[in-house]
């Protein structure tokens, strides 16, 4: 029996297990990148508009961190600046998770042992995962490029290199995960290590670009050599729509090959189920904090709250800085002026308008916090942990609310934190007294009622259909983010945008706050979560 025997069968198994999650992820990635292209072409429809955007992006430090080294006044430059990072992160996470899910996660569940005892070679699970990562990235590249062939506004060769750079970065992350899956003895550990690597790649590249050199015309940035130390830097340095370089693509492919080879080498140095880093022991007794249903929920939700909390805090500062840095660009752009005018009264200042626009937009992305927190409900149930809990004197309502309630409280805290960092950030960078910092705090907090509707909607679907909450919540989240990003640019029918609760949030501070709308949102959230509770009390608890 060869080391690779059974790879084909395992690949089929992996394809079957991922038949929903992979297509959905690929569609979201393609929709985000390709879907935003027509919107950008619409907003930046004159050379002057493009010029202004590119000049702001090239000179802003924050712009460089999140938009990469901008390359000249083209629509392609704006596309890279706006969506390339998103695309790279989505494909990077997708690829890393493909590897860990079909290698380390199987081992943790014991399925690998069962499979390994069958006619399956030692290298087969990793090989199947690697082939799946290749397939997923390949399909994404083809789908992306194919969508761009329909958009003549964008240079075709540039679109090809852009698609290849994203797919190449995805593969590099697959290589990283092939190594981390051998390092940690559990799935989440392997994922965390891979995500930490992604974070380092982002930070190193960010520094490289901030330290980069601005061209004489102020429209291009040459990255510092630091960016060449980061695979994410390589993806940007393909410079799609500008130089269209091949060399960084080869580097990404080479890294994928080398890291995968290291993964195989490590695999042969360890036993099935073991790892190079062993788990540390825990406490022998539960601390006073880990007591009761709420204590458990807090323990389970803590890391999620912290991780998203970082996102909220950074977003608050980002909005402040971006509003400041891009003020000129926004003000000069005709579409933006129309967009801003449509969100509020004519008496509102430009700054008020832009704040009213930016916070709800950011909120639709940060709503992922609620999704990540609430899909734990279904994880707890299908794993059998809920059964063990409910067999104690734990009331169903209490359990459901320990998660739904803590997510609601968490949301209030996170939006408050975003408001605080936003207000402080704005006070620090702008120096203007035109906008009161307390306005920014309220602009963030005013989104909470919509968030409560989002949370209780997910809770209701969980109460009704159990495990179906996972695909539902992620799809609704992606939908809300999409609506939040593009609804103002395209005129869609009302019912399309009204399926996102965030669309109801009043435009503050540019418009007067309609308390009745906020009250209605809260009322809807209360009713939905109460109905969810009643339904959940009546239904069977099921395990896989």
């Amino acid at each position: 029996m060869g080391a690779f025997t059974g790879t084909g069968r395992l690949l089929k198994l992996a394809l079957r297990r991922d038949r929903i999650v992979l297509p959905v992820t690929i569609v979201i990635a393609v929709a985000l990148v390709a879907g935003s292209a027509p919107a950008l072409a619409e907003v930046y429809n004159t050379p002057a508009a493009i010029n202004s955007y590119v000049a702001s992006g090239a000179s802003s430090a924050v712009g460089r961190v999140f938009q990469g080294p901008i390359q000249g006044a083209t629509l392609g430059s704006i596309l890279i600046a706006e969506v390339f990072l998103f695309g790279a992160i989505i494909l990077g996470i997708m690829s890393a998770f493909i590897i860990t899910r079909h290698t380390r996660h199987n081992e943790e569940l014991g399925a690998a042992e069962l499979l390994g005892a069958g006619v399956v070679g030692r290298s087969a699970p990793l090989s199947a995962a690697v082939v799946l990562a290749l397939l997923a990235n390949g399909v994404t590249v083809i789908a992306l490029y194919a969508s761009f062939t329909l958009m003549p506004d964008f240079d075709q060769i540039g679109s090809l290199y852009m698609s290849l750079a994203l797919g190449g970065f995805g593969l590099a992350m697959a290589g990283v995960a092939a190594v981390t899956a051998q390092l940690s003895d559990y799935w989440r550990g392997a994922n965390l290590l891979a995500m930490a690597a992604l974070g380092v790649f982002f930070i190193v590249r960010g520094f490289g670009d901030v330290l980069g050199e601005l061209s004489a015309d102020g429209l291009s940035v040459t990255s510092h050599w630091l960016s060449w130390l980061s695979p994410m830097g390589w993806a940007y340095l393909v410079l799609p729509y500008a130089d269209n370089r091949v060399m960084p693509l080869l580097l990404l492919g080479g890294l994928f090959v080398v890291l995968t080879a290291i993964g195989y080498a490590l695999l042969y140095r360890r036993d099935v189920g073991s790892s190079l880093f062993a788990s540390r022991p825990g406490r022998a007794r539960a601390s006073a904090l880990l007591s009761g249903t709420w204590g458990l929920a807090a323990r389970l939700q803590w890391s999620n709250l912290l991780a998203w909390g970082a996102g909220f805090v950074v977003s608050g500062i980002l909005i402040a800085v971006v509003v400041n840095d891009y003020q000129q660009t926004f003000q000069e752009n005709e579409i933006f002026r129309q967009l801003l005018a449509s969100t509020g009264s004519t008496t509102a200042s430009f700054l008020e308008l832009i704040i009213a626009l930016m916070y709800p937009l950011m909120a639709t992305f940060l709503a992922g916090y609620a999704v990540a927190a609430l899909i734990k409900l279904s994880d707890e149930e299908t794993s059998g942990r809920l059964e063990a809990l409910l067999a104690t004197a734990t009331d169903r309502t209490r359990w459901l609310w320990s998660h739904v309630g803590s997510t609601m409280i968490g949301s209030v805290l996170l939006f408050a934190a975003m408001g605080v960092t936003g207000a402080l950030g704005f006070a620090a960078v702008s120096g203007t007294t035109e906008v009161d910092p307390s306005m920014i705090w309220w602009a963030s907090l005013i989104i909470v009622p919509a968030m409560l509707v989002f949370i209780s909607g997910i809770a209701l679907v969980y109460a009704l259909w159990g495990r179906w909450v996972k695909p539902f919540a992620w799809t609704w989240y992606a939908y809300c983010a999409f609506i939040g990003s593009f609804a103002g640019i395209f005129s869609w029918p009302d019912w399309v945008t009204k399926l996102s609760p965030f669309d109801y949030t009043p435009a503050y501070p540019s418009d007067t706050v309609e308390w009745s709308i906020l009250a209605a949102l809260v009322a809807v959230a209360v009713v939905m979560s109460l109905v969810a509770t009643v339904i959940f009390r009546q239904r069977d608890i099921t395990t896989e």
Partner: protein
Amino acid sequence: MSREMVLQARGLVKEFGGFRALDGLDLELRRGEVMGFLGPNGSGKSTTIRILLGLLKKSAGDVTLLGEDPWKHAVELHRQLAYVPGDVELWPNLSGGECIDLLGDLRGGLDETRRADLLERFSLDPTKKFRTYSKGNRQKVALVAALASDVDLYILDEPTSGLDPLMEAVFQDYVRQLKADGKTVLLSSHILAEVEALCDRVTIIRDGRTVETGSLADIQQLQQTHFDITTVKSPENLAEMPGVHNYQHSDNTASFQVEPDQLAAVTEAVAALGVTHITSHPPKLEELFLRHYDKQPETATRES
């Protein structure tokens, strides 16, 4: 009836979509009794237990636990019972000790002395993260959490799967102690030796119905004697004799069970065939078990 009923289920039905997992199941358990709950995979043992725990809602029939409806009064009832699931899955990030304390706390407190004693006797390291435990050790975590609780009723769903014989002995000691303390135990099991060693009565279910219930001594089949014989003449005619059950043979080798009052007649007939090999033993639960599941008790008897 001398003792109070702890659990009473009559005509219990549970349907999942079109599938009938329980089809009129009956089950009774009196205070202070250790009841073996037997059945093959998929026969409805775990479904029954989940109804008793108020996790599933019955489709029809009557069920009371400690005099109450387990669906409506789940929380109050759970203060008086401890449960060990067949497949123990707890929080991967929590240590075994944390899981034990948490479950104990949610049930209303643990007996500290017993907790320490159980950890010691099961030789379980409570500092390891739950995800790093083997199947047997996961089972031990749930067992410690349940057995260290001072409750009236213990519901154990295949609690010893994955335990080695040494740990199995520790488990049996504890159940005997519970019994001595007057506690009530519902023990679902595959391991017949365990049931024979611990249980006062057994209930056997199949396809969601009760097929046999009673004390081990009461169950009719258990009073029969099992024979394996090899004879010179063909033993075929034995099959027709009154009191002979489950007769099977190939060539001159046969196995069968005989009712007590026909024993004399049958042994005489056997002797007349010219015996070259004979073993006989009291019936084992295996034979009863397999008989109810329409399987030939061949492997079981050959081994004995």
